[in-house]
């Protein structure tokens, strides 16, 4: 089956070209069928490859395929190659599986849109590029996918481009992504310079060899620089501080786009990249520390930004930024499998949350303001049930999915081998953030589904449950949000339940074993007593419950007056958080405006005045002025002509005599 890896990106590519060229004429039925089927086929192919991968013993689980000798010049050889190992297997199943569900959902959600065909073309294009990213066998193929999903993101965020804010949001996403990509490319250059290749199967063995032979020291400047540069790309793509600002604005796009691209797949590309590059990161502990700190700060601050947003999608957007922070905490403390685990569970519950919110928005006649909602539970039971399940999952209540992944990350942060003290600090931020997460998510539930309906009469009439095409994916994703965590039951609990293995950790072990060995050698983890692990686990659950109860108290018990009273009482703090700490405004003032004015100066002065005025029009003007003067010689008199003739003759004679 390894001969068929190329089919996984090929199917959506065909879908993109087909829907793009012929979609408009062929009508919605064909477009939906082709659009969903291609991703469905990709998922099936991925399942078949998984079956084959399972048949092999763990150390040999690797399929590669070279399609084409892409770049071959001088000492640079970069083929178009694919590689599937346990890590990319997990990723591609998530991408194509959740992608397929979202395609099906979109057939319902986007049904009344006139650019239906364009939507599905772009969505297929996105799956194509995302699969290239995940299946790539070298960093350049990954980068092709990386850029491509940025493009798809831009096109889909600005899908309703007729609206200015939508186009601006798409532009913002692409530009901020690009800034990150600049760092990423510099990292690639450094990598090629150091290792002479960009291929996974060449770089990682070479790095290990250089480390073991002593040629490459632990924490060498080159490795730290390389890993940090790659991480800059990840901050752009996966919305970490400082490049997260595009993601909340990206909510201008259709809700299934937010679910697929900005919750489940594209934004996780950064986490995947760091997990893939785990060996290099393990060899550069400083880079890991930076990753961990930035991630913890992002997780915490983004969570706080979510508590005062009134747009249902904005809450979920900040939640995504925060949860991505958790994933990066996971990979930042060398618990790479935990980061990937959270990536997977997050894909399930966040996609479910976004799709449910789309269902709600649909019912509310495209109103996204939670202050107009309320009491929707009775009108939309399936949406309510699935959203509640996903919310409990994200809050981290066992036995739902979020608990297992988040808890694993927090425990691993607490026991960070390289920097134990920083690990505790990261753990603190993460735990408080988990409480805040539970708070704002349940605030969302209470404001949307409970209490009295606060919208208009018109909206009340339209409230209805969504069609099956939309509710079926919700049910499937809710089920996965409930059960997905059981793939990664930690040993602590697994032993108590009778030797239940940690399936995901074992599956991903071959990918991360080298890193684990290096960490064990350099900074062996001290033995933490079991009760400590149990109590930390209980603490994180308690924090989540406190968050839920606080939300219940504020939004349910005391009625509508308490939130408003609190807003007035703590007005400066309220304003600060409600305006997202004014980060966008600061960026605008410090970066965007100077660049804008600099561009205007370049335009008005350099382009219009210097180049056009002096360079292009200048010689023309000069010729005109000079000739205006010189033509006065022609005064019409014959004698003048004669005089010049004589003068010329004299000049020649002089030249001849004295020259």
């Amino acid at each position: 089956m390894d001969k068929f890896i190329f089919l996984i990106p090929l199917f959506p590519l065909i879908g993109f070209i087909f829907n793009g060229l012929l979609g408009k004429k062929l009508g919605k039925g064909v477009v939906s069928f082709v659009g969903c089927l291609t991703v469905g086929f990709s998922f099936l192919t991925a399942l078949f490859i998984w079956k084959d991968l399972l048949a092999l013993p763990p150390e040999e689980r690797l399929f590669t395929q070279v399609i084409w000798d892409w770049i071959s010049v001088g000492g640079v050889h970069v083929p178009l190659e694919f590689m599937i190992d346990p890590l990319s297997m997990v990723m591609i199943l998530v991408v194509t599986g959740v992608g397929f569900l979202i395609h099906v959902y979109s057939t319902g959600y986007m049904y009344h849109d006139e650019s239906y065909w364009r939507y599905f073309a772009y969505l297929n294009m996105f799956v194509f590029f995302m699969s290239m990213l995940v299946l790539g066998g070298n960093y350049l193929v990954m980068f092709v996918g990386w850029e491509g999903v940025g493009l798809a993101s831009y096109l889909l965020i600005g899908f309703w481009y007729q609206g200015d804010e939508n186009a601006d949001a798409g532009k913002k996403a692409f530009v901020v992504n690009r800034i990150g990509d600049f760092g990423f490319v510099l990292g690639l250059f450094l990598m090629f310079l150091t290792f002479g290749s960009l291929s996974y199967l060449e770089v990682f063995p070479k790095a290990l060899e250089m480390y073991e032979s002593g040629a490459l020291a632990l924490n060498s400047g080159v490795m730290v620089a390389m890993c940090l540069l790659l991480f800059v790309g990840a901050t752009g793509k996966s919305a970490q501080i400082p490049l997260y600002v595009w993601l909340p604005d990206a909510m201008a796009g259709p809700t299934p786009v937010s679910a697929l691209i900005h919750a489940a797949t594209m934004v996780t590309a950064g986490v995947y990249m760091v997990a893939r590059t785990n060996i290099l990161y393990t060899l550069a502990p400083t880079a890991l520390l930076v990753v961990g700190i930035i991630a913890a700060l992002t997780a915490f601050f983004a969570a706080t930004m979510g508590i005062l947003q009134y747009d249902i999608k904005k809450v979920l957007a900040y939640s995504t930024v925060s949860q991505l922070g958790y994933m990066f905490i996971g990979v930042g403390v060398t618990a790479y499998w935990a980061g990937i685990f959270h990536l997977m569970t997050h894909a399930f519950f966040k996609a479910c949350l976004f799709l449910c919110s789309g269902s709600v928005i649909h019912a509310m006649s495209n109103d996204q303001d939670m202050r107009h909602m309320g009491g929707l539970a009775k009108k939309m039971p399936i949406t309510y049930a699935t959203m509640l399940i996903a919310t409990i999952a994200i809050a981290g209540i066992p036995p739902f999915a979020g608990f297992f992944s988040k808890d694993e990350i927090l425990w691993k942060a607490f026991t960070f081998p390289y920097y134990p003290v920083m690990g505790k600090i990261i753990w603190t931020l993460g735990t408080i953030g988990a409480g805040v997460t539970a708070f704002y998510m349940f605030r969302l539930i209470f404001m949307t589904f409970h209490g009295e309906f606060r919208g208009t009469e018109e909206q009340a009439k339209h409230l209805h449950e969504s069609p099956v095409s939309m509710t079926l994916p919700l049910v499937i994703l809710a089920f996965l949000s409930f059960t997905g965590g059981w793939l990664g039951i930690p040993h602590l609990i697994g032993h108590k339940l009778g030797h239940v293995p940690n399936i995901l950790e074992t599956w991903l072990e071959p990918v991360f074993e080298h890193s684990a060995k290096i960490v064990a050698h350099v900074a062996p983890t001290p033995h933490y007593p079991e009760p400590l692990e149990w109590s930390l686990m209980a603490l994180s659950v308690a924090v989540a419950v406190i968050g839920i109860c606080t939300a219940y108290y504020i939004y349910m018990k005391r009625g509508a007056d308490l939130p408003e009273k609190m807003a007035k009482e703590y007005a400066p703090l309220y304003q600060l958080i409600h305006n997202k700490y004014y980060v966008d405004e600061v960026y605008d003032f410090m970066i965007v405006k100077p660049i804008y004015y600099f561009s205007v100066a370049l335009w008005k002065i350099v382009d219009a005045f210097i180049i056009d005025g002096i360079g292009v029009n200048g010689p023309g003007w000069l010729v005109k002025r000079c000739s205006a003067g010189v033509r006065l010689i022609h005064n019409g008199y014959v004698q003048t002509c004669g005089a010049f003739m004589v003068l010329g003759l004299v000049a020649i004679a002089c030249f001849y005599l004295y020259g």
Partner: protein
Amino acid sequence: MAPIEYYITLSCILFGLGAIGFLTRRNAIILFMSIELMLNSINLMLTAFSHFKADMAGQVMVLFIFAVAAAEVAVGLAILICLFKHIKSVDITKFNLLRW
């Protein structure tokens, strides 16, 4: 024979007179005559050199100049007659349309 300097001097004086006439006279026909004077002064000089150098080339060139001068005068007078038909005058200050 007189020394060659006399012939050269005479030729130069004639050429100068012709040039001055060419530059200062107003009547177009006098202009033509001045041009002829200049040409003939050159003829004189060429013949003198031919005699003193005992080389026939000078006198051959003189014959060329005769022919050219004659042709030139013919064409020039033809143009002048055409011009006269329009402007009714041979005063060169009246020929001033070819100006800026």
